[in-house]
């Protein structure tokens, strides 16, 4: 069964989004893409350094990939909007991972500024995928502002600590009525599978693959985990048996003498 995933008018063949940062050499990226099966890859924008010639990252990204530039470095809505507009000038699509981080110690997103930037960018035709703290009110406001999905954090960026915000992400999945992509914090394939079992639309990860001893092996492990979690979600998890009740203290009255049929 083809389980396509539509976002921003595109049908994606994989629910695993990967990042392009933190690899010890960028030449690994094409094979990571292949082994992970990912269809979306994030990239960042930085000032060019005049002093040395850097290799062009885009050379390592096959043309079939959907490029998801992020706004990393933005500390408020205005900066994020500027970065998004610059990224679009590359004419490689209109997707943007909106990331506004005020707090430099924990690198936690600023939901308020993120909502403001989403309004502006969605109105300009961007497919906005906001990175956010899993808060339902914020998710609903992002939806109203025109976000194509929400990307709640599982735990702080780069921490590899897993789904610490599970309860809150579950609420978003149940209530937000737009795709929920778990971004940040997933360190192990089992955690990616867990997010997918919960009903996440996709997961985005970078550090877990890029910093593994064998990034290619880990890319393939995550591919399997995401697929397994998704299949489990679609198959419907089996019933969790509640504690057995011997008698019928709450409904016994229905069988009592004199009760209706």
């Amino acid at each position, binding site marked *: 069964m083809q389980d396509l995933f539509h976002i921003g008018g595109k049908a994606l063949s994989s629910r695993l989004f990967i990042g392009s940062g933190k690899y010890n050499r960028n030449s690994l990226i094409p094979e990571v893409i292949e082994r992970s099966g990912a269809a979306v890859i994030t990239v960042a924008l930085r000032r060019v350094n005049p002093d040395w010639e850097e290799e062009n990252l885009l050379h390592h990204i096959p043309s079939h990939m959907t490029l998801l530039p992020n706004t990393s470095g933005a500390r408020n809505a205005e900066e994020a909007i500027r970065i998004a507009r610059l990224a679009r000038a590359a004419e490689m699509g209109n997707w943007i991972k909106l990331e506004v981080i005020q707090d430099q110690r924990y690198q936690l997103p600023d939901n308020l500024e993120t909502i403001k930037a989403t309004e502006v960018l969605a109105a300009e035709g961007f497919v906005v995928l906001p990175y956010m703290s899993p808060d339902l009110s914020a998710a609903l406001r992002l939806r109203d502002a025109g976000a194509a999905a929400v990307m709640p954090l599982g735990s702080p960026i780069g921490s590899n600590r897993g789904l610490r915000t599970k309860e809150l992400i579950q609420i978003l999945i149940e209530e937000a009525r737009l795709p929920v992509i778990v971004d940040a914090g997933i360190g192990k394939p089992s955690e990616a599978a867990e997010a997918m079992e919960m009903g996440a639309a996709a997961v985005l990860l970078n550090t877990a693959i890029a910093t593994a001893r064998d990034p290619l092996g880990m890319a393939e492990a995550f591919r399997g985990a995401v697929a397994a979690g998704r299949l489990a979600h679609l198959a419907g*998890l089996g*019933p969790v048996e*509640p504690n057995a009740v011997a008698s019928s203290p709450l*409904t016994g009255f229905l069988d009592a003498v004199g009760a209706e*049929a």
Partner: protein
Amino acid sequence: MSFYDILQAWESFPFSQRLQGYSDVDVRRALGKSKLDAEDLLALLSPAAGRHLEEMAQRARQITQNQFGNVIQLFTPMYVSDYCVNHCEYCSFSSIYDFPRKKLDMREVDREAAAIAATGIRHILLLTGESRKDSPVDYLKACVKVLREHFTSIGIEVNPMSVSEYEELAIAGVDSLTVFQEVYHRETYAKLHVKGPKRNYRNRLEAPERGCAAGYRSVNIGALLGLYDWRQEAVIAALHADYLQTNYPSCEISLSIPRFRPFLGEYQPDSDVTDRALVQVLLAYRLFLPRAGITLSTREPARLRDKLVHLGVTKMSAGVSTAVGGHSQDGGTPQFDISDERSVSEIREMLYQNGLQPVFKDWDILIPN
């Protein structure tokens, strides 16, 4: 998009065939989930679920305790006018019945309100027959002005209105709206609503949403069980509540579980809603919508009400008269027969004995000026 559009997608759904198809496994799966979908709702209202009422009840009680605690909010309906322009087959206020109609003037409203308030009740539900001519917005506003002197929460159950009319009443002090679709099944709706503006199905269906849009704090909907197949009606009513909850997260959505009681008319119920059926509907509502209020009226007999308070109910009417002015004068014609005729203090005592706290005043809105 309104719930009307969603409903249209369900119109061709083969309810009876699908409901028969659920098994014990489907019911247990639904019971093991934290968030139920439409498929689970159908399973819980299926014949198969009738064999699992105790498990459903255990879960329902647990959810209710988690969400609401051990409390039941009490309210009293107050009928101020029985003039009605509609002819509905199942209702004794119907325009075809010839009985002396009555409408309270403000002095009488005040006396009736004082009699109800003396029982300790602070949540009042203002009811009229449906007639824009006899109980127009201005009349309701005048009533609300009087009621505000006696009560902290005022709900209305009147003819469907526009958003701006609802807003006008909200400014006057109304915080809650009750509108029952009565029956969601369209053909039955058309058959039972013979004459009058109530024939407009869609206008009524969208009235609760207009109340949400007008900013009411609480909106209460319901299917009058018995007018059509109760399983199907309960599915649609629960989906309606789910739609409102999803789209208006700041409004508390409640479901009532009125069961048709015969009265003045000849009309006899179409679907036999036994006690077991009523319990199944109540439990399915609670499991599908953990945060929804569930309202139980005095249509049900005391012996049953005393049991249902443990299964997910959050609001109960008490000390009820369904006749206009019934708390302070004699001789009105009741809209329907009530079964639980206990006084407010008797209900309060019953709740305490069941380990539940009766809540007379849930909130007190701050109105500027």
